């Protein structure tokens, strides 16, 4: 029985009952005939009878599910995501700065379900049998796959930074995964008396959202400037360089004067121990800093499901074939988003979305026994330093001699010392970008 037979029959059965429809088997044969006459396989086959399971409903997973269905409408696509509403990490900082309501960061799965016919299951993906190509959901249901796409995001390496575990995060939040942690940090900032010190501890590379810690202190500074102008911000960094460094430094100076102090690793910025009870941190050379509000961005690794599937290596991330993002360790399993080792691409929502589109094509081509097209990925990370002050870093990526690289001559950061209207436009475009990627990923229509 050819797969095209399967889906053409019901498709043409509209308005007839099934028995009547079955009489006209001829219709069903048409697809097979065309396939036999040399029509490209997945145009006729459309992936019918084949199933792709996508784990994780964030920028990577939700986009992969949508674009799989756009490419091969008859492919069965199952998306597994525990949350009914997904809250994005991007723009959490704007919530912390008081520029956005938390609810505006939430997105649902109606478009994927209703418009694209994705089966969305709100459950945890538990045990994975990579050889048997099946996984078990939290409710016990077993789900087999022809191809598996993992977009699990990050997990924290609890305890890798001494004193910082899940219990410590209740006192000194990370707020690096949106949800109760974001609300906790916001509440602590609101409760902090004027004249207090906000300390942010930034990790070594690689980590989710390289400009994130620096945008965060900008947004906290924006809030302090309005409500607690005598307060200080200390950024203790395990690195000596960071994303868009010159632009951030310029923006901090111009907007917040001396409020933000950044301490790099060689100036003893690396935190080695956290005492969440007393909101104290100790640096490499033994200096103790005390905070009024302490925000620790902990070391990270690929989400747990990636480990369970056997695609993670000693680095804690997942190595992949650069053309398709198929795991180097487990055939038929693809990994996208923050969990993947894809330098020089940053771990950003934007990149996860474009990785999803490249991988969706690779998966559909692979299922049809065809070659995927020459891949291309892009990134644009907007950071908002103040309501009228946005900056960007952009990149276009390709495979060159079997390695990922930035296309020579492309990409780069906003110019230093740009005119105020340039910064203003990039702040405006940051909002527009968020609306667009939320529409492209989850189908969320912009408000108003």
């Amino acid at each position, binding site marked *: 029985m050819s797969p095209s037979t399967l889906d053409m029959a019901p498709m043409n059965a509209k308005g007839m009952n099934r028995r009547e429809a079955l009489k006209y088997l001829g219709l069903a044969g048409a697809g097979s005939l065309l396939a036999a006459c040399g029509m490209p396989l997945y145009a006729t086959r459309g992936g019918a009878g084949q199933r792709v399971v996508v784990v994780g409903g964030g920028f990577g997973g939700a986009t992969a599910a949508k674009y799989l269905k756009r490419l091969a409408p008859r492919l069965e696509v199952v998306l597994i995501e525990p949350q009914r509403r997904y809250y994005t990490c991007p723009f959490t900082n704007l919530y912390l700065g008081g520029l956005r309501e938390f609810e505006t960061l939430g997105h649902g799965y109606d478009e994927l379900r209703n418009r694209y016919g994705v089966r969305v299951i709100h459950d945890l993906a538990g045990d994975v049998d990579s050889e048997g190509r099946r996984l078990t959901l939290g409710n016990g249901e077993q789900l087999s796959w022809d191809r598996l796409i993992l977009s699990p995001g990050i997990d924290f390496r609890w305890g890798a930074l001494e004193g910082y575990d899940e219990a410590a995060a209740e006192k000194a939040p990370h707020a690096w995964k949106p949800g109760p942690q974001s609300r906790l940090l916001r509440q602590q900032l609101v409760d902090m008396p004027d004249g207090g010190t906000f300390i942010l501890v930034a990790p070594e590379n690689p980590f989710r959202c390289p400009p994130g810690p620096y945008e965060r202190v900008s947004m906290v500074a924006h809030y302090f400037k309005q409500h607690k102008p005598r307060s200080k911000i200390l950024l203790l960094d395990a690195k000596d360089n960071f994303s868009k460094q010159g632009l951030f430094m310029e923006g901090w100076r111009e907007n917040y004067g001396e409020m933000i102090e950044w301490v790099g690793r060689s100036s003893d910025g690396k935190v080695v121990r956290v005492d969440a009870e007393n909101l104290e941190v100790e640096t490499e050379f033994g200096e103790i800093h005390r905070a009024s509000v302490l925000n620790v961005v902990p070391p990270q690794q690929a989400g747990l499901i990636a480990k369970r599937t056997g695609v993670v290596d000693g680095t804690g991330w997942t190595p992949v074939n650069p053309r398709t993002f198929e795991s180097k360790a487990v055939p038929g399993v693809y990994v996208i988003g923050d969990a993947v080792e894809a330098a020089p691409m940053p771990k950003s929502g934007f990149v996860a979305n474009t990785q999803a589109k490249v991988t969706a094509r690779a998966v559909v081509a692979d299922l049809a026994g065809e070659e995927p097209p020459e891949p291309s990925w892009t990134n644009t990370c907007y950071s908002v330093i103040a309501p009228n002050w946005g900056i960007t870093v*952009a990149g276009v990526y390709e495979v060159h001699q079997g390695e990922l690289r930035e296309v020579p001559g492309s*990409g780069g950061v906003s110019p230093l010392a740009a005119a105020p209207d340039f910064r203003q436009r990039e702040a405006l475009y940051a909002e527009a970008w968020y609306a667009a990627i939320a529409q492209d990923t989850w189908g969320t229509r912009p408000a108003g």
Partner: protein
Amino acid sequence: MILISSGRSNVRTDEPRGLTRLRGKALLAPYEKKVRHCYPRRDSAEIREVLMRLVVLVGLIALGGATFILSLRSSTEPTQGASAETPFEARIALVAATCANCHGTDGRLRTAIPPIAGMPESFLQTQLLAFKNGEVPAATVMPRLVKGYTDEELKALASYFAALPRERE
């Protein structure tokens, strides 16, 4: 009817295969029965009916095929039937999909960032090449992005978005 019952070897999951078997049986059942039943008797009414069915069948195959080809051609979702594309077209569709991150799916979202679907090809082409050549003073991120593509790719992107309807069907 051998044609439609020809098997496919690369089904890997259990459930779809089970489904295939089930539906295959249901679809073929009347014919199998008919064949077994009529073989020894072959009365003329039966033969006529079989012939009639055959005529209808051939007609429907032709009709179905034509409809199918037309549906591919008139498809408004440019990514459907994607493998009918040349490798270059497939790459352009792939690059175009990355534009959606700021311009919305298929370039149709209207925000401070303008929609690009259905804009005149000449306008899009001029604009993209002007970004690349540093001729748009007000531009922010676009010059940095378009430098990642050849002029040929940018022209093909202009033509891709120009061909899309401005509004979703």
